[in-house]
């Protein structure tokens, strides 16, 4: 992986919880501000420094950092939303209330392997100029029953707007899409997202949508390097504070199928 800390030619801009909106969705949650790559060309040139990037910014090849997503999920009925938001505002970091409206598309690449490769492409519908967010989620790690959260490998990539065309060129095909609308909160490195999923009635038309259910999905997640299982203890402690408004638990997606 390439070293990506420090100053590049363009200052790294951070959007809290947001690259194409806070990512949520069955199986997905955006854990940290996604760092921007080279943004789409602006209509006029930005002031550009002429100096060469410092030597430490030279690409570093070899070695990948495995990031894992730790996840707890629960849900609340529509009528309980306000009290949950009120509690979250009290418990979480003081920040501007952040809402989002995102459109997520799930792409599959079928090969001779039994299971297709799944990628999620997400874009913000209400914030202009943000990059698209491409996400890969691995299979949940089985094992430690004492581990309090669902753990799986994740790779988050910010991309230019032609992501869907590019995925199709790679051989991916869209399997399904949906819209999410909700709120995002942060406490330290934990992200809490409360959102509603909407079904898209006409493929590709995000204007005609209808709610999938009468409830809101609640997700508590952390993205951390592999081996940091202690974070799941912090998550459990936080989840305790949200009871009885919402019960967050480790939900294995396979058991639902």
């Amino acid at each position, binding site marked *: 992986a390439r070293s*990506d800390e420090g100053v590049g030619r363009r200052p790294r801009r951070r959007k809290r919880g947001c690259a194409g909106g806070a990512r949520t969705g069955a199986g997905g949650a955006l854990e940290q501000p996604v*760092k921007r790559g080279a943004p789409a060309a602006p209509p006029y040139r930005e002031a550009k420094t002429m100096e060469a990037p410092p030597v430490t910014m030279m690409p570093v090849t070899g070695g990948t950092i495995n990031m894992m997503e730790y996840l707890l999920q629960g849900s609340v009925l529509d009528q309980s939303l306000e009290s949950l938001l009120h509690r979250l505002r009290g418990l979480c970091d003081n920040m501007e209330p952040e809402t989002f409206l995102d459109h997520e598309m799930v792409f599959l690449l079928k090969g001779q392997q039994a299971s297709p*490769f799944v990628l999620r492409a997400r874009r913000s519908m209400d914030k202009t100029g943000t990059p698209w967010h491409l996400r890969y989620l691995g299979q949940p790690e089985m094992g430690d029953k004492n581990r309090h959260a669902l753990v799986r490998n994740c790779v988050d990539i910010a991309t230019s707007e032609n*992501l869907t065309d590019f995925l199709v060129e790679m*051989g991916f095909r869209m399997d399904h899409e949906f819209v999410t609308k909700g709120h995002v909160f942060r406490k330290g490195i934990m992200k809490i997202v409360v959102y509603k999923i909407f079904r898209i009635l006409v493929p590709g038309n995000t204007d005609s949508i209808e709610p999938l259910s009468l409830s809101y999905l609640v997700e508590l997640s952390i993205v951390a390097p592999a081996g940091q299982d202690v974070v799941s203890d912090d998550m459990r402690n936080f989840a305790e504070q949200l009871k009885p408004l919402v019960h967050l638990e480790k939900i294995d997606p396979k058991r639902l199928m």
Partner: protein
Amino acid sequence: MRLLNLFCCFLVFYDSVSQMPVAEGKSVQQTVEILTRKLELLGAEKQGTFCVDCETYHTAASTMGNQGQAGKLMYVMHNSEYPLSCFALFENGPCLIADANFDVLMVKLKGFFQNAKANKIESRGTRYQYCDFLVKVGTVTMGPSARGISVEVEYCPCVVANDCWNLLMEFMQSFMGSHTPGIPSMFGNKHDSIYSPGDTMAQYMELFNKIRKQQQVSVAGIR
């Protein structure tokens, strides 16, 4: 030793990437030195180094049958001028600009896309600044062998090709003389559209592809 043609890349903001033929009877190294000396005489200042590299991926046999299409080549490139980014392109297809994690994703996709490691090609060299121009003269290498020379000239204040192509040509003639290339073919009808880093990488990709093909031809001609 007779050398291959150099590639000049003219990349600009508006930028141009092209190949520079190696001077008769000289090595790649010597030709690069001739060029850089000319630049320094003009008054250009050295400003660090640069590196552009390109890896080739092809769709694995396991996916080809299902998609019903011939195996495609995907190029994943990096440019030290944009250290946080990764560029993925298909020839005559879209160019995706992504952040550095795209490389990590390609590792996860190795069952579907295989990295043709022997095809990895890169250009490394010195960066020069001359007023509003950035010139990068690089040695193109594939594995251990030098395959050519790339020259990238960037005119920084401008983002529309049509507006500054003549100026760029004039500047290039001052140190490249008769080796100044014509307008890159990839621009075709797009002279008035806004230039982007993806256009730069597409030019490098064309250049690298040309160099790869050339090598196969000139093996017989090397003394």
